């Protein structure tokens, strides 16, 4: 079957299911409404928070427009940050490069060709200070997307605050730290699962005492979805990861109401509009119920799920890239109608490379148009009470509980990961979806239908390969100027702490202060913890 030309109209369809394969009925009526709407839907800002975490939602405060940025050296990313803040962005979001995410210094042989490519390279406290030069940390909220080495990057950030005279308790922001989804989907790890979980719990514990305004984990479904999961899998695995962190913190003896209010979530905003909205609403309801009934939370803040959303990178196409502006708008609208607290909109050129400045600006403008022109932010949960949306929310919730039961049967999420259960579910879903595209059972405009020959080339952002050398030079300068004996002593102390049971944050901060590099700290801990290798399933 040949792809239709772009002008031909689509004929009648016979298959009606969401992008996740969830069937959609011909019509939804009052018979689909929940039996007890007050208990299941309720009011915004009230348990079970189906309609939103806050009473007035965007009337009280718009979502934070938080565009993820980072490339090349710290100087360039710092310039992009200033640019975004000058154009009305309200929060910063740092993308680190692959070596930083994997715990390698820029001069490590495995970093070759990757320094500054997919994010900014940060090797030491010196780099972090340059990254935030001219940006008073007391006045911004910063999100850092880093997981396995999160504790180290947080230590750098805390010390930059200290150098600026801003104490840790005044720093606001989020660090991703969600290591479970790394083993499940994103695959950037440094240690085996158990010591990695210890490090996460150390951070949560430390932040609950020292950084009351900080969110130490952003429990993330985004990458699970990008790896090919369905919406139902994204919801189930993400919430289950969240419960696992809660259980670890409780085992540590922390009071649930002391740390749970600082947990936040990060979901994908995919292109199947209503399914996504139902996913966010179901997530809030499940989290609220489980936090209260299973984990004994008393404070409403502990039950209130708040999340960041990012439009789906996987939905972007390299073909006819301007079409991506439309996809991103729909996805962003779903996130807003689903009650997100902050949002990143992808740039239309991101299936090709990192975004150009123009493309990144258009992505931010997309959010501003939704916020200030469309009127959708005028009332909380405008879709609440829709028979279709409420039914879909219920079904989404039921699908999540099915997965919870299967995971519990295996002995919990960590054991399920060891058995490759979520990995296999995601790989199967990704493969099934690709088959649907190949067989044209599902249409992606411009890719397997409505194709266009002879497309003009889109200008893309090129990362200068010379930047790698520049970053390696910076790193060598830092190594040359620091007190070598102090670094050795701090790393030895970190190793001792890793071998014991004390909280690892203080020795990490001291090593960071002595200008030990990220790679050196990771290596020191790996000597005690070991490394991780997966047996891939496909």
């Amino acid at each position: 079957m040949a792809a239709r030309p772009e002008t031909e109209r689509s004929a009648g369809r016979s298959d009606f299911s969401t992008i996740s394969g969830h069937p959609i009925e011909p019509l939804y009526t009052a018979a689909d409404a929940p039996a007890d709407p007050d208990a299941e839907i309720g009011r915004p800002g009230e348990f079970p928070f189906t309609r939103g975490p806050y009473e007035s939602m965007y009337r009280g405060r718009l979502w934070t427009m938080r565009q993820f940025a980072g490339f090349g050296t710290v100087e360039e990313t710092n310039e992009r940050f200033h640019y975004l803040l000058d154009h009305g962005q309200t929060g910063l979001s740092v993308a680190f490069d692959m070596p930083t995410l994997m715990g390698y210094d820029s001069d490590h042989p495995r970093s070759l060709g990757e320094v500054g490519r997919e994010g900014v390279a940060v090797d030491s406290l010196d780099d972090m200070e340059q990254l935030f030069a001219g940006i008073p940390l007391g006045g911004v909220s910063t999100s850092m997307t880093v997981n396995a080495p999160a504790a180290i990057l947080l230590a750098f950030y805390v010390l930059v605050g200290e150098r600026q005279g801003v104490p840790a308790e005044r720093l606001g922001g989020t660090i991703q730290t969600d290591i479970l989804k790394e083993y499940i989907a994103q695959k950037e790890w440094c240690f085996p699962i158990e010591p990695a979980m210890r490090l996460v719990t150390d951070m949560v514990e430390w932040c609950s005492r020292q950084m009351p305004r900080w969110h130490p984990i952003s429990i993330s479904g985004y990458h699970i979805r990008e790896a090919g999961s369905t919406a139902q899998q994204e919801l189930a695995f993400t919430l289950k990861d969240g419960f696992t962190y809660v259980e670890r913190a409780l085992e540590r003896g922390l009071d649930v109401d002391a740390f749970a209010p600082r947990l936040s979530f990060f979901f994908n905003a995919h292109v199947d509009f209503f399914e996504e909205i139902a996913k966010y609403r179901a997530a809030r309801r499940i989290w609220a119920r489980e936090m209260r009934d299973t984990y004994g939370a008393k404070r409403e803040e502990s039950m209130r799920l708040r999340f960041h959303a990012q439009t789906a990178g996987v939905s972007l196409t390299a073909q006819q890239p301007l079409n991506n502006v439309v996809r991103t708008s729909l996805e962003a609208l779903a996130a807003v109608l689903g009650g997100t607290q902050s949002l990143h909109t992808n740039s239309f050129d991101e299936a090709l490379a990192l975004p150009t400045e123009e493309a990144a600006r258009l992505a931010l403008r997309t959010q501003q148009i939704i916020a200030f022109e469309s009127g959708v932010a005028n009332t909380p949960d405008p879709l609440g009470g829709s028979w279709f949306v409420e039914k879909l929310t219920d079904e989404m919730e039921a699908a999540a509980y099915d997965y919870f039961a299967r995971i519990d049967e295996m002995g919990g999420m960590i054991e399920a990961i060891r058995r490759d259960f979520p990995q296999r579910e995601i790989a199967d879903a990704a493969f099934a979806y690709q088959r649907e595209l190949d067989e044209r059972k599902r249409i992606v405009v411009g890719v397997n239908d409505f194709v266009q020959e002879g497309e003009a080339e889109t200008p893309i952002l090129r990362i200068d390969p010379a930047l790698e050398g520049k970053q390696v030079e910076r790193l060598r300068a830092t190594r040359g100027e620091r007190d070598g004996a102090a670094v050795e002593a701090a790393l030895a102390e970190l190793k001792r702490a890793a071998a014991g049971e004390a909280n690892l944050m203080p020795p990490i901060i001291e090593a960071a202060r002595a200008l030990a590099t990220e790679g050196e700290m990771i290596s020191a801990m790996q000597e005690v913890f070991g490394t991780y290798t997966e047996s891939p399933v496909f």
Partner: protein
Amino acid sequence: MEAATARKIRVVVAKPGLDGHDRGAKIIARALRDAGMEVIYTGLHQTPEQIAETVIQEDADAIGLSILSGAHMTLVPRVVELLREQGVDDVLVTVGGTIPAEDIPELERLGVAGVFTPGSPTDEIVDFIRAGAAKRHENDA
């Protein structure tokens, strides 16, 4: 000739570099396996040296390198060079991922037979590898 046709096509699917985006690699690995090929998937975070060694050890007919990190112009030439250094010049080299159009001619000049960017139909990739590997089998015979 008979032995050559009976032998299954052997393909190494590899993830060089540090990025963990293995969705595409796994889909291709599975599609090639479903098409009757012998697939060796290296897993993530492989160095060019590890990949070249796997190709040689497995006596692969073809290799599919999946890269979404932007490091393709560093990593792909290195894999090709390592294979040549060890006298392997008849393996069909393919690359998949976010490869800008303007980099494709240079990759082809280095000896990459096919570059598949996002949106490429799976069957097209399977057919390409089957055709290329068949040629290698003929030469062997």
